[in-house]
């Protein structure tokens, strides 16, 4: 039997560690924890965890730095924890290689969902590149430029297609505004968030049941967007 996935928690608050250890243990994960950045980096190297949950405010060093250092030699998915108005911080950490984030206080279901996505993503990244992306109800044929939603073909403009395929290729993971803009419109346009608002709005009209209450293209306030397939 395969071993249960190992999760490394890096957080200096004992209450959070205690609660998360209990909850994650109950969800059949193996959990190890570190209360400083340095200890966390050491454990990440020696224990090769499957997922790292990293609090951005640590006593000894900046969480973004921890993220950066781990990324130098490891591709282990990193989920960061941060407070409500730490948007700049979160974006910086995501740019430095973090895979996802959660805003404290968070809902446990949400955390478990993020861990599942991270585990799946790390497994998927080993596999070869597909030309057909299946994400939830959507199927995107990159080679033939065909998008079907519930087996019905959608008419998309080329920009819409580029945007949607980029989001769907990273299903359930948050993508920053800048990352998306750079990918779809190029680096020099990466500040023009208004493009995204317009195109996401158009896409929602085409793929969402109720464009005003989107279930597929989710806004991450102040951070970016994600294409949601689970939860």
């Amino acid at each position, binding site marked *: 039997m395969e071993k249960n996935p190992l999760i490394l928690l890096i957080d200096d608050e004992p209450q959070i560690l205690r609660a998360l250890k209990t909850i994650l243990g109950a969800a059949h994960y193996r959990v190890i924890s570190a209360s400083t950045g340095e200890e966390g980096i050491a454990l990440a190297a020696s224990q090769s965890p499957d997922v790292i949950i990293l609090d951005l405010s640590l006593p000894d060093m900046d969480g973004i730095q921890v993220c950066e250092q781990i990324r130098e030699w490891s591709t282990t998915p990193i989920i960061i924890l941060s407070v409500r108005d730490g*948007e700049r911080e979160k974006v910086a950490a995501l740019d430095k290689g973090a895979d996802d984030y959660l805003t404290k206080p968070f809902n446990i279901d949400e955390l478990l969902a993020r861990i599942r996505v991270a585990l799946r993503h790390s497994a998927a990244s080993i596999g070869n590149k597909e030309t057909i992306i299946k994400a939830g109800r959507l199927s995107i044929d990159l080679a033939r430029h065909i998008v079907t939603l519930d087996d019905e073909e959608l008419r998309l*403009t*080329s920009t819409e297609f580029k945007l949607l395929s980029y989001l769907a290729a990273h299903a359930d993971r948050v993508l920053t*505004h800048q990352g998306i803009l750079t990918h779809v419109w190029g680096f020099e346009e990466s500040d*023009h968030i*208004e*493009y995204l608002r*317009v195109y996401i709005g158009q896409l929602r009209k*085409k793929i969402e049941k109720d464009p005003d209450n989107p279930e597929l293209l989710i806004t991450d306030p102040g951070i970016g967007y994600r294409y949601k397939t689970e939860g």
Partner: protein
Amino acid sequence: MNYTRDRSLQLAIGIPGSLAIVGLVTLALKLAGSELQIQLIALLYLLPILVCTVLWGLSVGILAGFLSFLAFNYYFIQPYYTLAVHRTQDLITLIVFFIVAVVVSQLIGQARQAERVAKKRELEAMRMYELISAFAGLTDVELILKTLAEKIVDTFHFDQVEITSAVDQNAGQVKYHFPASSILVEPCDLSMTMFTARSTQGEIKLWFDQNTLSLEETRLLSAFSNQGALAIERAHLFESENVARVLEESDRVKTSLLNSVSHELRSPLAAIKASASSLRSRTVEWESAAREELIATIDEEADALNLLVGNLLDMSRIDAGALKPMLRWNSIQEIIKGVEGKMRNQLHHHPVVYDIPADFPLVPTDYVMMEQVFTNLFSNCIKYAPHETSINVSGRKIEERALITVVNQSPPVPEEQLDFIFTKFHRITAADKITGTGLGLSICKGIIEANKGKIWAENLPDGFAFRISLPLTLEGELPRTPKDEIDGKKPPDTSD
């Protein structure tokens, strides 16, 4: 105004002018022939003196008098064509003429001089008045320097002015150069220290191409400099007074905040503690419905605590002036709908009804802060509006601004109280029936103002309205449209 230059110009025109006028009069008298009596001729010769004095001033007037005297003597007093005088009668006429000429030109010249000085004074006074009015209400040192520099150049026509304020603990040192494009060539032609009775406030450096300044100019300039120094001093005083006032205010606020907050933090904590300890208790066997209820209480009260902590944090930032919104192009509908989604449980008895056109423009705002605003507004509606009444949210574009209105069925607020509901710790219901720190609306106001907008409340015939007005431009610009649309590469969009 260049007085020196004026005077030399007067002489340059006046000397040949007086020659010409005296010549003309002589010619006219000569043509008139010998019928004229000598006294009449003397009288007529006074005319060119008057004219010259009036036109070109005292010195030219005296010159004209002298010329007239010579011409009179030479042409009209026997023996003709010499300056000699034989008859006693003629001599007396000539002497009287000379005295009258000098006295008349003196008198007129003095009157003119006095008038000119008065005009100059009036001009100076006007310039001073303009300067002082321009300074009125200015509390920004940079603006004061700018005003002073522009007025100096405007008044004296100097080439360049540079004003440097003295180092101040609040404002630091400010420098202003006018005209901004001109090139500095050190050293300057004149520098003046600006000082008040208390201390030195700065320095004025001047560049000009004339040699010296007249007495009047120097006087006016130093008056300008003094006024400038006073204005700078006033600005500094205003600044430090402001700092003191802010400190005092924040002190007062902190005290009432502590009182209010410790109470507000305790009530959700009490609910959480009660629920959690009940669940742990072994003495009671909970039915599953009751368990659910207790768990829901813990979850909801934790959210309430989180909102409160968020508000406290925002409040301290607003107070410290540290609320720095990340203004990005955002869809207001999306923000509000997101908030509605998160508050679904609390909004159970207050359905939200939308009236926002599909093509409502993007509004430059901070997404997360605006979420806090609508969370607070909705939570206010829930507190005050009766159950099973709707919250109506509408959006309109009015005069290049976005107007967002949130109407609910809460009771009207007395008109004179409408402004105060956005003040910290203000609650219109005196009774403690309704929970809350009285922070929510004041945070809305703080955030909306940081987002360059306005928020106010109105009593409507059919409810109570919060209105938010926000600009539709970001740094003076409208949202850009992606290039591929401009290039026309985008295929026609048929689906919507």
